[in-house]
């Protein structure tokens, strides 16, 4: 607990998905306004935990990734508001900066255009770049002092509402491996929508928690209980882990998510059906193999379409008190 920790929060701000989320009734939905106020409470809690704690907030907008706030002052908008004697100043700066940057983006957003896929990958890589710089700065300055090699404990929290984008499979996997190298934990909170296979893998591979919200009205409680404690403490309190991790991959030809794939031996490209020529490395495959694979294909299950729900076992939510 002595160590300060760094938290990078990536907020998925896809207007369409949030509209769906607000209108949803089957699981009771959550309007964006309520979500943001709960998020700000959580962020304030993080910087209140310890004075040296640092925070960066990234927004994934359609086709864009923006740094909304950072405690080292990179994304500060010029706020000349009157100081309020009744609020703690850092809270106030944080809240107003995040809210004004989000409002600014949404105002410039053109409703008539078709929505681009959200810039989750951009956010992940930016967060990693930012953490990489913070680590190198800290380790350089800490060398002289009492041998504190890693004085910050970086992690990333992704608040996701959008479904998987198969086209981002490779960049997301690359980000996951670099997070592993930097020893960054990636936590995922799925606020709305079906399970996100890639983010599940991200949380599993980096030792983070993947939490699917069951009751959206208790979002703040979920976040406080699962994501506020830094990874060092999580070993002591049992944070909900994933029950099943899906290791399916996206095929290169149709970007479908497949269980059984056909893999090129030269470049390991994945295809959902036998192809005569590899589209990535232009390798021609022998005809015999194609015939053999095609003959055996009816035995194999056909590649399932994305989003096919799998039977899920009971959530392992032991540490999470039932909201109510």
């Amino acid at each position: 607990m002595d160590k300060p920790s760094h938290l990078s929060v990536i907020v998925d701000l896809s207007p369409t998905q949030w509209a769906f989320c607000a209108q949803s009734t089957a699981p009771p939905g959550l309007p964006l306004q309520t979500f943001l106020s709960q998020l700000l409470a959580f962020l304030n809690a993080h910087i209140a935990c310890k004075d040296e704690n640092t925070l960066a907030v990234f927004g994934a907008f359609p086709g864009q990734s923006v740094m909304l706030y950072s405690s080292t002052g990179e994304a500060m908008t010029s706020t000349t508001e009157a100081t309020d004697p009744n609020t703690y100043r850092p809270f106030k700066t944080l809240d107003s900066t995040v809210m004004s940057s989000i409002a600014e983006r949404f105002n410039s957003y053109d409703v008539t255009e078709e929505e681009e896929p959200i810039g989750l990958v951009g956010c992940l890589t930016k967060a990693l770049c930012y953490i990489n710089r913070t680590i190198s700065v800290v380790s350089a300055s800490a060398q002289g002092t009492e041998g504190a090699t890693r004085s910050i404990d970086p992690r990333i929290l992704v608040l996701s509402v959008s479904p998987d984008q198969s086209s981002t499979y490779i960049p997301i996997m690359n980000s996951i491996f670099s997070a592993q190298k930097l020893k960054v934990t990636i936590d995922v909170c799925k606020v709305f929508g079906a399970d996100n296979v890639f983010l599940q893998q991200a949380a599993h591979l980096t030792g983070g928690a993947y939490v699917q919200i069951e009751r959206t009205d208790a979002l703040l409680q979920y976040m406080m209980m699962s994501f506020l404690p830094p990874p060092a403490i999580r070993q002591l309190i049992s944070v909900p882990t994933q029950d099943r991790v899906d290791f399916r991959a996206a095929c290169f030809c149709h970007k479908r998510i497949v269980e059984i794939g056909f893999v090129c031996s030269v470049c390991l490209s994945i295809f959902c059906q036998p192809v005569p020529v590899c589209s990535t490395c232009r390798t021609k495959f022998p005809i015999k193999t194609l015939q053999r694979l095609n003959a055996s294909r009816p035995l194999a299950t056909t590649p399932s379409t994305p989003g096919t729900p799998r039977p899920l076992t009971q959530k392992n939510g032991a540490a999470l008190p039932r909201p109510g």
Partner: protein
Amino acid sequence: MPPAGRRIGDDFVDDSDSDVSITGLDEEPSRSKAKGKGKAIDRKKKDQGKGKAKDQAYAWEATYTRSWDTVQEDEAGRLEGAVQDLIARGRRRRLLAPAAAIRRTIIRHLVLVLDLSSAMMDRDMRPTRFDLMLQYAREFVTEWFDQNPLGQIGIVGMRGGLGERIGEMSGNPQDVLKAILERHKLLPNGEPSLQNAVEMARSSMSHLPTHSSREIVVIFGSLTTCDPGNIHDTLDECVKDRIRISIVALAAEMKVCRELCDKTGGQFGVAMNEGHFKDLLFELIPPPAQRAVARTGGGPAADLMIMGFPMRLPDTSPPSLCVCHSQMKSEGFLCPRCLAKVCDVPTDCDICGLMIVSSPHLARSYHHLFPVKPYSAVMTLDDTPEPSKRCHGCAVAFKEMPSTMLGASGEGMSFYGRYRCSECHNDFCTDCDVFVHDVVHCCPGCGK
């Protein structure tokens, strides 16, 4: 391989085939001594090692290690120039790398041959050649599995005139590391036998499918080899089996070693000092680019493989028997075709024979196939109407004024500290440039 030009450095001669220069013997003793080594440096590596070779002395020449000599202060007494030099060197190396070498063998099988002859107790590399070799071999194995997760490594030792199987071919890094963990079991003695070791490595790879690569990496410290038969017959067999042999020699170049590498398409290098030894060894880690038509004709046949991506069961699931060990276990992976439970991946399903891999294993290799394009250094801001104030990656503020302080080799470096992606035209700082290309392999601007 087309004959490349030999390197011409400060202390290298390029035009003589004999090992002894008659005229140069008296006046230039240091020059003729360096000659045997100079030829030994792998020709392919001449671009990369150029700056390095000049700064570093041979291990036997350096009486003292004077690490402070390599860092030079500038007029103002700061080290910035030296640091800039190092960064610039890394940048240039990346720019020189071929951009479109996309065909690489990913499923690799490698036998690491360690020299355990008495020549390895030589102390010209500190602490001894043997200890250094063990240390680097462990690092090599770890890094190799990181980059080639579907590969397998076996270990063979050369000791007492025999080839000795130290570690079986295995895809598990822990197994391989365990084999070379215990120093006292590997203590050097006797003569090495190159032929015996290569034959043993060859026989352990004879059963492999055609689409996987077969490689032998030899770390060779001795200047002699004690063989039972004609080593050229072994060489011919290796060429026929399409085995690549790469050798890192610690003493000097031997003709038979050079020939083994050249004929099989491997790399050969003689380590000048500790750092160079590590460089030579670690150059063998990235998957080799596959030549479109291998000289031996045909090249390794490509094939389409069917693979299953399993689902991982949590630790808390109800225990059941696994098909591989018949043990009651909670955790495990479900084969997607027959739903049998196996303990670990990658493996072949014991029930239906499907190759089960987890997709992260495959994904680890993809950055070799889709590298990030190198960023170009921004030399002037005149042609950009509104230059961004902050780095697109880490949001650090750019310098307003161009810096005048650059190292001696400032080429390829931006005066503004800005590097621009050719796809999305965003500017990045030096740190992010290095980080994006070496670690993330994905541009934050365009996501490619």
